[in-house]
């Protein structure tokens, strides 16, 4: 799992370096993590499944064996979280 917060001060981390595994080139800078990476593994899994189910909450509910409003609430909570990251 990608670390997203500083283990020392809990502040949100930034990407300092990216490397090409083929030629070894390193790109350095200070890049913000995409909002999706800041979500928990369960939430990321939810979004992946949601995309695979073509964005159908009904199919998601059947897949997760949960009620429609429960799945809709999970999605609404993730949307609220992403909105808060982007602010």
């Amino acid at each position, binding site marked *: 799992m990608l670390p997203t917060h500083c283990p020392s001060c809990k502040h949100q981390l930034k990407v300092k370096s990216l490397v090409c595994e083929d030629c070894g080139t390193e790109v350095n800078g200070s890049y913000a993590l995409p909002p999706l990476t800041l979500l928990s593994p369960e939430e990321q899994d939810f979004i992946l499944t949601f995309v695979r189910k073509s964005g159908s909450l009904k199919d998601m509910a059947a897949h997760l*064996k*949960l*009620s*429609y*409003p*429960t799945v*809709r*609430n999970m999605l*609404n*909570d993730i949307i609220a979280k992403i909105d808060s990251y982007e602010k």
Partner: protein
Amino acid sequence: MKSNSWGNLLFNPFNRIAGWQAFFIGLGIVILSGIFGGLTNTWYTGLFDMSTGALPFWSGFMMLGIDIATIVVVMSLAALIVAKDFRIIDILGTMTLARAPMILLPLLELFLNADSAFHTSADPTSSPSVIILKILGYPIVLWHIVLIYNGLRTSANLNGAKLIVTAIITIVISEMLSQYLVKTAIANLVVPYI
């Protein structure tokens, strides 16, 4: 998994069942409640109320209809104000299924026959059957309230203080309104035909 536990099934089934599915299961239980109530002369004279006495069999279904319609309308109006995303069918389904524990009240009356104390005893409230019915009745009503609370949380995606305040206000209004409407309906639609 936590949501599979008996506690969740009994107190928050709405994680798994909502909408039309909850409505039809709840409707089946409500119809049985009406039948048991009619057979035992036990009447739901408000959202959380129970009375005994001789009334026409069909009047129990009328009272149940009023009780459910009242809480669905009050909850839907509250959700319109405080929730940003909800479906009326989820409120209808969860509130109908939330009434399931109330089926136990006429069944208790069947075994305790508390109504007879009102005809035979000078002080029916001190009768053992009435006292036992009250002691066992309060946890059933509390169970109903917990289900209403969880139904509102799932249907309207409310949390924290907003959920608690909305639940308390809607439950109190629904209880008072349902009592008034049932009383009015009995006086105007039932009593003239007895």
